[in-house]
């Protein structure tokens, strides 16, 4: 079985080495990453900005995401609404997403439209139409987005409470979509300050994947982006979360049918050498029918409808999350105890070599997802560049998983699964509130 993993490692490395990627900086400090291929006659253009939820000051939570919406509503050369209309009439489409550590925008379009799209992207980077009309339009749309994805979604509500309570100092405590009361109060001046501060070329990375000629692309990127002046970006103060010295438990009474629990253990960053062992452990706990959670909590004890374990992939130390929904009140009573037993077992005995190999093989299949489309590759390159400081780290991921041993898993389980550094959110039906 070891041979299998070796072969997989070999293939994925060789494969990765054959992806054509080149990077350089423009004079204004903007980083450019190019990865051409001719699979389909289209291009994905993506821009990452190093700003997101963790950069927001209290009272303006959600501004990164709200601003992401505002970026589609007109700039000096292109009137409101034109951005998407031009893209769609040229066979393209665009979107954006905001995370704790970054914000990113992408467009996919026919290969012969590169210059047009670079013009539109650069125009909104240097001269976005920032007025009250734009702000008010998107403010109410984002409030609907929040109602959809958090306020009327019991599981998301638990997650929001988990982060808000697990972190006292680090701004991972703030929801990326923003608190409703903050969304109501963000001003145009807040937005202008935000734009001026973070949306400059030297705070961004431009990535092109797909069917383009490298030399032509370089000339066009220089033509449209190099003249945008760089800005002074305030140094981002790295917040170190103080040690948690006791378990926190929050109970939410919601309009739900079934009770559930979410546990967050203080964990590590994507750049920590422990990350890969933690990520494999999440896989061993909850991926597939042969996972520990499914075997014990569902098949054997019949306690849950679903459960997952997830290691955050963030620039600063995040959480190792466990979520489980019980089949009823009776089952809920034993649920936390049974989860703890599984964790205790791993702390004392580690995992089997079979479990570990299985998790590694699963990670290899998942790894190829990055290379399936122009869109997924452009995201992966930017993601590793922003979070780890170098997109080349994308190409040694499999090797890092491969090196993890069963002893590593046991060690990290002992290190991070500590009741004093965990936060528990319990969700119960409102009818049970006494």
């Amino acid at each position, binding site marked *: 079985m070891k041979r*299998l993993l070796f072969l*997989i490692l070999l*293939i994925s490395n*060789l*494969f990765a080495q*054959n992806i054509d990627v080149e990077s350089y900086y423009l004079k204004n400090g903007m980083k450019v990453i190019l990865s051409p*291929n*001719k*699979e*389909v006659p*289209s291009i994905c253009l993506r821009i990452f900005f190093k700003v997101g939820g963790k950069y927001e000051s209290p009272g303006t939570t959600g501004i990164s995401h709200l601003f992401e919406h505002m970026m589609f509503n007109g700039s000096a050369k292109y009137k409101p*609404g034109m951005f*998407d209309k031009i893209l*769609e*009439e*040229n*066979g*393209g*489409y665009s979107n954006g997403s905001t995370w704790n550590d970054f914000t990113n925008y992408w467009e*996919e*379009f026919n290969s012969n439209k590169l210059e047009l799209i670079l013009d539109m992207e650069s125009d909104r980077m240097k001269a976005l139409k920032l007025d009250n009309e734009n702000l008010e*339009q998107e*403010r*109410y*749309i*984002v*409030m*609907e*987005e929040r*109602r*959809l994805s958090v*306020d*009327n*979604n019991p599981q998301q509500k638990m997650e929001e409470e988990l982060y808000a309570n697990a972190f006292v100092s680090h701004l991972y405590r703030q929801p990326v979509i923003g608190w409703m009361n903050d969304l109501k109060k963000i001003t145009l001046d807040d937005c202008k300050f935000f734009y001026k501060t973070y949306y400059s070329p030297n705070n961004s990375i431009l990535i092109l994947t797909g069917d383009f000629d490298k030399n032509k692309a370089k000339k066009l990127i220089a033509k449209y982006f190099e003249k945008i002046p760089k800005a002074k970006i305030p140094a981002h103060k790295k917040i170190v979360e103080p040690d948690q010295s006791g378990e926190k438990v929050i109970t939410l009474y919601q*309009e739900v*049918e*079934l009770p559930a629990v979410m546990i967050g253990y203080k964990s590590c960053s994507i750049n920590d050498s422990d990350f890969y062992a933690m990520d494999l452990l999440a896989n061993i706990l909850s*991926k*597939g*029918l*042969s996972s520990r959670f*499914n*075997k014990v909590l569902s*098949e054997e004890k*019949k306690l849950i*409808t*679903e459960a997952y374990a997830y290691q955050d992939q963030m620039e600063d130390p995040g959480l190792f999350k466990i979520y489980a929904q019980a*089949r*009823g009140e009776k089952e809920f009573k034993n649920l936390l105890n049974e989860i703890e037993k599984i964790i205790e077992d791993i702390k004392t005995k580690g995992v089997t070599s*079979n479990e570990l190999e*299985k998790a590694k*093989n*699963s*990670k290899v*299949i998942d790894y190829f997802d990055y290379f*399936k*489309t*122009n*869109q997924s590759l452009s995201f992966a390159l930017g993601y590793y560049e922003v979070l780890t400081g170098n997109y080349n780290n994308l190409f040694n991921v499999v090797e890092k998983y491969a090196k993890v041993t069963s002893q590593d898993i046991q060690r990290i389980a002992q290190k991070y699964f500590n009741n004093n550094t965990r936060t528990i959110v319990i969700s119960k039906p*409102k009818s049970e509130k006494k």
Partner: protein
Amino acid sequence: MKKLIFILVLIIISNLHAQSISDFQIKLLDNGLKYVVVQNKKLPLVQVRVIFNGGASLDPQKSQGLTYLTGQLLLKGTTKRTAQQIAEEFEFLGSTINISTNYDYSVISTEFLKYNFQDGMKILSEIITSPAFDSKEIDKEKEKLISELKASLDNPTYVANQFFNRIIFEGHPYSQSIRGTVKQIEKISARQIRNHYKTYFLPNETTIIFYGDVNPGEAEELIKNLFSNWQKGDAIKIIEKPVQPQSNLKLVLVNKPGLTQAQIRVGNTGINQNNPDEIPISIVNTILGDGFTSRLVEEIRVKRSLTYGARSSFQMQRQSGKFVISTFTKNETVNEVIQIILDELKKLKSSGVSDWEITKAKNYMIGELSRNLQSPEGFVDYLTQIVFYQKENELLTNFADKIKYTTKDKIQKVIREYFPEKNLLIVVVGDAKEIKSQLEKLGQIQEISYEQLLD
């Protein structure tokens, strides 16, 4: 070892530029099993789909969920291996397996690393041809499904879609719940499940699709080895029943207390999978409600900030389909949003669409489709639709021309024929005490509780 590396490098380099979409052939084993193999060596992966004809339409009215439950139980042990052994051995390959059921078919989806393809297919063939249906496993699966059905009620989007379906296809198997209801699942017996498998999960009603880094000759050999002994049976007779379109305005309020945002569905019956006008209808639907620049997005989201998303779609099945507009808004503006939707449907009917809108929609559709087909999952799922519903191969190999050469006359004609204006079914899921008085202005309301989904 060096030599091995060298060969691998060569293979990989030569494969990086994937071939363009090629035509495909459906082949047949003696027992009637159909299979399709499409090779693409870009990544060392193989996508597998196993499609069983029938789907939830086979479920008796009083045993809804039977096909779904039978499908899930395929994974719960074979005559040779226990459920746990199957899971361990299959998942050791790095793959996961998923079985989903719709009204027309059940489908097993998985993906293998090319090196594990043969081993994985051996286990998969055992799952398909010799499931154990052990009584204990059946009880466990039923119990789990019942609690999952309860949990789904927390999702307003799910509740809205379920009720829309129930009402628009009333009297037809398409109105039934694919995963069943709590009360009906409780009553399904082990014998029913075993019989259901024996009667309907047959080689002559199954299609296997491979897509990825797989040699067609080897794949064919493998299929012959693994599936030739699978015994054929009597062909499935799907009872075709007519679907009656909604013939008057029907307004249903599904009360779910505590919601601060209401889910809205507006529509009627639509078209089936083999409707020759699918492309012109899709062009008009794109103009009305697909993408970020559709009329619905423009009117509800961009101009008035009343929602985060609005879309319309024709969801097609073998016998019929539905046309549905989906959106959501805060309690205070439910009526306003419904009014905008009704106005847009009227406007489409009375004023048609512009040349610019047609061009934009056509280009957008061609771009979307070609991007979707770049992902292996996107490609194989689209191929599944074409093969299963016996659609023209041209929809895969020449879709761009088919879209491009659709005339404006044809487009105006499908607006008249297929897009509803009056006689709509409107389903709203929300907190009745907050929104009922608004809705009453639209007409007579039928109020029901979301908990009825359990029955």
